[in-house]
């Protein structure tokens, strides 16, 4: 049944099944095998609302080039069963070239959007094939079939299986390899999918990592050694990765009773001199806002990573959206200068989180990192991020000379005042959320208030953020202005348009607060057309831009709420035709 197909530059596939069918495990193995073989790849997960046992899907895109976005369409879907498969319908665009492989014994349960859709179909008897192997499982059959269809070298898959199952022992490895072999043997009967070119095998200097792990690593690189945690989807993996990692590097993670406690614990740890972080999602950030204001007023550095999910309220915990932007920027009581930064890729989660620690420590103020589910819970093969020399550097105070008094909130040119760490003789002071004078004594006087407001504002306004305020790419009179996880699809779209009449450039903002007004205004010079792209319903990013810079009146705006990902194809048509496809 197979016919030779052209080599593709990237191939996209879905492994779907009910909970317990092991599709996520199989997806992870496939990504690891592809990485071993020398391909790049991106895997996102989609799951139903059930805690355990619901439907799940591993969405993979593999390529010989780095992958920055989910695809416009899928080449291959393997469903181990059809339970609730229709729930994924919106997330898995099919077309007449898509190959759908289902379980032969459950053919009758195939959902209508598949049977009536344009895709090509094949059936595999997953159940009986796996039964024939002692310890065999349908997900391993599927893995073997996929590998054969897309041209994944067998030894890479075998090696990935051995790695993943090392703890389960030799029998599990043998059973899985036999399953994969059985899957390979039936692949020839399936409709053909594109194959990826045989990988070069050159993979030194690459990592396989999720955005949440990358954020945790960036924090540790930056010097964070104290974390207080309260679990919340989709941020928990940051905390779970950091917990043992911190222990190894001499740090500590404490589980708190709620987010009110976790942020206050982090502030307490940092006040003690240990760079500190907490990670959460929208509902947790909402609880933390009062204490983040305290960190601004008392000038204690702290990093808060918000892995955004669909809102408002409990919203859609397992899916992505950029709709906490307003909260991160504006939710603190009073005039409270703080830092808001956003990573724009899985790889950049390392850099931006590390940078946030540097910024918080240098300016002695809280920094909020706005990641999201699309970055945090996705796993990718990336070029190893360069080690940047951003290590937490806090200006500290030492015992003053005889006759001199330490002033914790001394007014300085930069606004940053040397901070005495507890234990330093002669510098005892009280950190305070009450307005205070330079010494720290509470004061409600107009003069003290104005001086301290100015000083705190100066810290973040006058800081040199260098080139890092944004990533820019491409060329052209048209500028696509975006941030966060929308950046990947925009980049891919612009690569597709490069060299055509519609070539455009991108500005992806990493620094959101303080708003880099001058840098952005300058970067927009010469733009004939500006298209703002974001993933919210109300256009929060657009509102932010309008409030901060003189954006052209006719700037175009593409904003869609979650949970569907931005797709490169939509951005291409947006640039070409002014509307998404």
């Amino acid at each position: 049944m197979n016919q030779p197909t052209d080599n593709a530059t990237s191939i996209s596939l879905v492994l779907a099944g009910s909970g317990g069918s092991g599709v996520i495990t199989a997806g992870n193995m496939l990504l690891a095998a592809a990485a071993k073989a020398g391909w790049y790849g991106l895997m996102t997960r989609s799951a139903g609302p059930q805690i355990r046992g619901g439907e799940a899907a591993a969405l993979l895109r593999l390529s010989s080039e780095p992958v920055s976005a989910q695809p416009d369409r899928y080449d291959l879907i393997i469903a181990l069963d059809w339970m609730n498969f229709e729930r994924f319908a919106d997330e898995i665009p099919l077309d007449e070239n898509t190959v759908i492989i289902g379980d032969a014994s459950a053919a009758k349960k195939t959902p209508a959007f598949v049977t009536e859709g344009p895709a090509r179909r094949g059936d595999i008897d997953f159940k009986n094939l796996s039964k024939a192997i002692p310890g065999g499982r349908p997900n391993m059959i599927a893995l073997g079939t996929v590998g054969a269809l897309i041209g994944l070298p067998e030894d890479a898959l075998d090696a990935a299986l051995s790695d993943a199952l090392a703890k389960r022992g030799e029998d599990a490895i043998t059973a899985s390899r036999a399953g994969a072999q059985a899957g390979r043997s039936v692949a020839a009967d399936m409709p053909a999918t594109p194959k990826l070119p045989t990988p070069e095998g050159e993979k030194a200097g690459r990592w396989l990592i999720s955005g949440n792990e990358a954020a945790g690593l960036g924090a540790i690189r930056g010097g964070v050694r104290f974390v207080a945690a309260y679990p919340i989807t989709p941020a928990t993996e940051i905390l779970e990765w950091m917990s043992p990692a911190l222990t190894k590097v001499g740090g500590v993670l404490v589980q708190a009773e709620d987010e009110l406690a976790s942020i206050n614990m982090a502030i307490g740890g940092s006040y003690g001199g240990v760079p500190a972080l907490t990670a959460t999602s929208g509902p947790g950030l909402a609880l933390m806002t009062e204490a983040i204001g305290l960190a601004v007023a008392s000038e204690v550095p702290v990093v808060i990573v918000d892995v955004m999910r669909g809102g408002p309220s409990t919203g859609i915990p397992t899916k992505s959206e950029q709709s906490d932007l307003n909260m991160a920027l504006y939710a603190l009581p009073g005039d409270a200068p703080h830092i808001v930064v956003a990573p724009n890729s899985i790889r950049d989660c390392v850099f931006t989180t590390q940078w946030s620690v540097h910024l918080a420590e240098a300016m002695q103020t809280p920094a909020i990192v706005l990641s999201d589910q699309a970055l945090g819970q996705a796993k990718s093969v990336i070029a190893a991020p360069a080690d940047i020399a951003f290590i937490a550097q806090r200006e500290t105070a030492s015992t003053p000379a005889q006759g001199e008094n330490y002033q914790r909130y001394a007014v300085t040119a930069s606004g940053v005042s040397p901070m005495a760490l507890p234990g330093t003789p002669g510098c005892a002071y009280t950190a305070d959320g009450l307005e205070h004078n330079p010494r720290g004594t509470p004061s409600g006087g107009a003069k003290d208030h104005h001086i301290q407001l100015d000083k705190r504002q100066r810290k973040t306004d006058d800081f040199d953020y260098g080139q890092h305020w944004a990533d820019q790419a491409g060329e052209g009179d048209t500028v696509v202005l975006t941030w966060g996880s929308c950046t990947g699809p925009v980049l891919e779209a612009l690569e597709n348009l490069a060299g055509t009449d519609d070539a455009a450039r991108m500005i992806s903002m990493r620094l959101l607060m303080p708003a880099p007004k001058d840098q952005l205004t300058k970067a927009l010079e010469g733009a004939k057309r500006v298209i703002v792209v974001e993933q919210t319903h109300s256009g929060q990013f657009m509102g932010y831009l309008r409030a901060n810079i003189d954006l052209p009146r006719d700037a175009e705006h593409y904003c869609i709420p979650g949970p569907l990902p931005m797709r490169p194809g939509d951005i291409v048509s947006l640039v070409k035709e002014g509307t998404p496809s």
Partner: protein
Amino acid sequence: MTAETAITPKHTPRDYKSDIKPVWCPGCGDYSVLGSITKAFSELNLDPENVAVISGIGCSSRIPAYTDCYGFHGVHGRSLPLAAGLKVARPDMTVLVASGDGDGFSIGGNHFMHACRRNVDLTYVVMDNRVYGMTKGQASPTTEPDWDNALTPGGSGISPFRPLVIALAAGANFIARGFSGDQNGTAKLLKEAIEHPGFSFVQILSPCVTFRPDQKEWKDDVHDATVDPTDDLGRAARRLMTDDGFNVGVLYRGEREAFQPPIGNASATVADLEGKFAL
């Protein structure tokens, strides 16, 4: 006595007092509590820079700035997590937490239970005046149900919270009650509380002369606990459940080990962590 200790001057309570004038009303019980705290520190001869006083918001929570130790005057109700973060990150510091009945039992009630349970080595001093003093006289969780006030005229109608019983049930490792009218006695309790490992809870009856002038009577109501402190949970529970709220002294002394995860002992480098992601 070695030569070294001979030349170390002994600290006096003054060493722990700042020159900032308290905002408290004349006669407020909290003045005396401040005195007990500085006395306890001096008797333990702690170097002021190695002591931190952490608080939330309320009249009572103003204490940190009135000491010459490291301090943190945080937000309302969150002093305990703030202090726990400091102590876990800096086990070398002696950390005392100052709070009020509103700050500690109402808005901060959840942290109170979990701090008892977590058992970080902190001394938690709650100045209980059965009223929200700072916001000018509303009922708190320890206020009598029929106490008339502007927010709940005729009284809240809710029976009071029993903080010592809750502390015991939640796992506090040391439980005592003091009275601000007895500065030396309270200093002694605090000294013991600071020395006791784990989470030590000291309720100090500290009258609000402005909004609860009736509490001037407390000096006649308090009495010393007639029995020795126990480490027996059952006996302690019975004693705390049946006491009249004016029993003063150490009431429970537990033997749980303090919560202090190791910090500062690295067994790997950041590069080792990164190696796990490399292909």
